[in-house]
């Protein structure tokens, strides 16, 4: 069969904060998971587009009705705009990878979409419906499973996928993970943002900033452990640009993530057969956007010290580890399976 006639395999990581696509013809694209529609005619005239997606939408949010399709790790069902936002986001990713053009040549597109575990439980049908028209066949899997598959961490390993909406943990026992092998926590990137906003509001009630600005500070300066230098930001206070130190608040907000994650990790390890627990503890993979917080992995290691110790590796490419894993799954799945998973 010639290359032109081969199916195109696609891995998609549909995340709360960022979504990415990896394709079997070597493309990789990422978009921030924001979709916005101009709020009125004036905004539409200024923006010159009926809809904006990604960073563009975030930056022009003042003129937009802004949506995050996977807020808190769940697809928003029920609202027409919420459902449309998912399709716009997917459409944007597909355009980036020229999937429509490929389908027009008669090639079939087989996609594996990784979603937060909670969305997998609640929104699977909705997601299938949203993917209609974009791909020929679709398999939906949980994000940490896709990451584990892509990294070949299939046996005696644990993936801790710290996203924006949820933290998903999945222990890999050499078989397809069941619900008992997985946990979902609401403590993730967005939760840290809320903690930080709350702490800042307590200490500096005069500061009036949106959660988006707080999120940007966190993404730029976040850390766990001892600070290397004080973190000072400039914000308008009473109309006057003022420098304030947020080191203490930022540290407290980020470190608040460690106890629930460490506790859940140890709880999952306790469910593994006794003779393999040590191997799992020493094979923990930290993935997801929030895994890049400096010092996070080290702090989780410290938390395991009292339980026999362990090792935590941070994935090298947290943006694409999910979509690359999805792509690996898509390529490995037998053609006959794909025939039965048509959208």
């Amino acid at each position, binding site marked *: 069969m010639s290359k032109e006639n081969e199916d195109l395999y696609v891995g998609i990581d549909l995340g709360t904060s960022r979504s990415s696509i990896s394709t079997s013809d070597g493309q990789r694209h990422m978009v921030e998971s924001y979709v916005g529609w101009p709020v009125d005619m004036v905004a539409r005239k200024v923006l010159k587009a009926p809809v904006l997606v990604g960073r563009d939408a975030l930056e022009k949010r003042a003129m937009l009705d802004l949506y995050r399709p996977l807020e808190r790790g769940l697809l928003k069902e029920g609202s027409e705009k919420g459902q449309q936002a998912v399709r716009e986001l997917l459409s944007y990713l597909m355009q980036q990878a020229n999937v429509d053009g490929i389908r027009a040549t008669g090639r079939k597109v087989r996609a594996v979409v990784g979603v937060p575990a909670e969305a997998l*439980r609640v929104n*699977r*049908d909705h997601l*299938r419906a949203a993917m209609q028209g974009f791909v020929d066949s*679709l*398999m*939906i*899997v949980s994000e940490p*499973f896709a990451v584990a*598959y892509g990294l*070949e961490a*299939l*046996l005696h390993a644990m993936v801790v996928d710290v996203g924006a909406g949820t933290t998903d943990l999945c222990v890999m026992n*050499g*078989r*397809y993970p*069941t*619900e008992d092998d997985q946990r979902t926590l609401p403590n993730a990137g967005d939760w840290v943002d809320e903690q930080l906003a709350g702490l800042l509001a307590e200490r500096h009630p005069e500061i009036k900033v949106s959660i988006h600005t707080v999120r940007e500070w966190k993404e730029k300066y976040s850390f766990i452990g001892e600070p290397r230098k004080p973190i000072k930001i400039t914000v308008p206070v009473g109309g006057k640009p003022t420098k304030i130190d947020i080191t203490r608040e930022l540290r407290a907000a980020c470190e608040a993530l460690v106890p629930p994650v460490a506790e859940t990790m140890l709880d999952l390890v306790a469910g593994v057969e006794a003779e393999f627990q040590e191997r799992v503890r020493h094979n923990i993979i930290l993935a997801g956007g929030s895994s890049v917080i400096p010092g996070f992995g080290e702090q989780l290691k410290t938390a395991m010290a009292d339980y026999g110790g362990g090792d935590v590796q941070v994935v090298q490419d947290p943006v694409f580890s999910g979509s690359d894993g999805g792509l690996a*799954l898509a390529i*490995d*799945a*037998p053609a*006959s*399976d794909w*025939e*039965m*998973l048509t959208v």
Partner: protein
Amino acid sequence: MTRDTRMRQEMLRGAFEENLDAIQGLPRGTWRRRQLRRLALRRRMLTVAALLVLATVSVAAWIGAGPGQAATRQAEAVAGGAPDWSVGRTIDTSEEPVGDEPGGGVPVEPARQARRIAEMLAVQQPREALQGVIPLAVDRVVVDAGHGGRDSGTALGYGLREKDLTLDIALRLGTMLEAAGYDVIQTRTSDLSVSLKERAEMANNARADVFVSIHVNWLPRREARGVETYYLGHTDDPFLRSLAATENRDSGFSMADYRHLLEGIYADVRQDQSRRLAESVQQSLFESLRTQNPQIENRGVMTAPFAVLVATRMPAILAEVACLSNDREARLLAISTYRQRIAEALLHGLSRYQQEETDTSRPAAAQHPETTRIPPGRHTP
């Protein structure tokens, strides 16, 4: 295949099945329950095997020595040593004769006895151990791919032919049976014409324990779909008579052969075993396939005088594993995973039959009423 590859395949299968459950609107966790059932079955089989091996060893020890002496004699026999038999243990006449040993009052020859025990204990595989001591219900299986060569069986305009489908499923089943330790004989392994007489002779000459013929159905009512399994028996159903006549065409048997074959067959004890085999296979086919084919009908276990069932001398069944006349089932049959699922269901049905037959405590086995059709509800779990 490496362990890593196997794990990957298992995981892909899990992801696939979970997605399929969702598409088919099955409750969440159907796949998981299926996985747990699979694990439980595996555990049960291992437990049974372990218990039987234990029983084998105990029987061997008991043969070699009286109570209390078993352990010593066993060790001596395995070590190949020559214990002092000068006192000459005499087998009590009330004891059951074993193998070709004389039954009463004859001193057992020590070296011979030791050799025999050593042979019994030297077995490596549980299955081999069982063959020596406990009769197995199924050891050699004849897998018969229906039709072939000039005879295409039923066919669809766009290229799906019964002879190709049955061969594919038969080869898949054969591979899995061999992997499970069965001795497998295929009546054909390529697109060959093999008469029904030759198929039956192959099975009889091989002294097979079980004969499984695989067919694909064609029903006049196009919306009808499902699985049905036949064993040998009389039928008054005009459709089944016509179906049997069609399947028996070009059988290679003369009228004289038929008269000879038909003498007394309905009183044959193997009919009971065939019925149990048919029930097990039918149940397995229905339960397994309905996960991928929720509209599948359990068309039941039936009796009919198909030539291959008449002429074979072992428990024999003919399974109609799908209906090519139904568009949906035809599409499913075109997919290799569905054919693999059929083969797995046949394997599971055979294994369950084997398990039930090896269970020696089946006092109610012969008490089933004569049945020509088992209502579908009976097989519904």
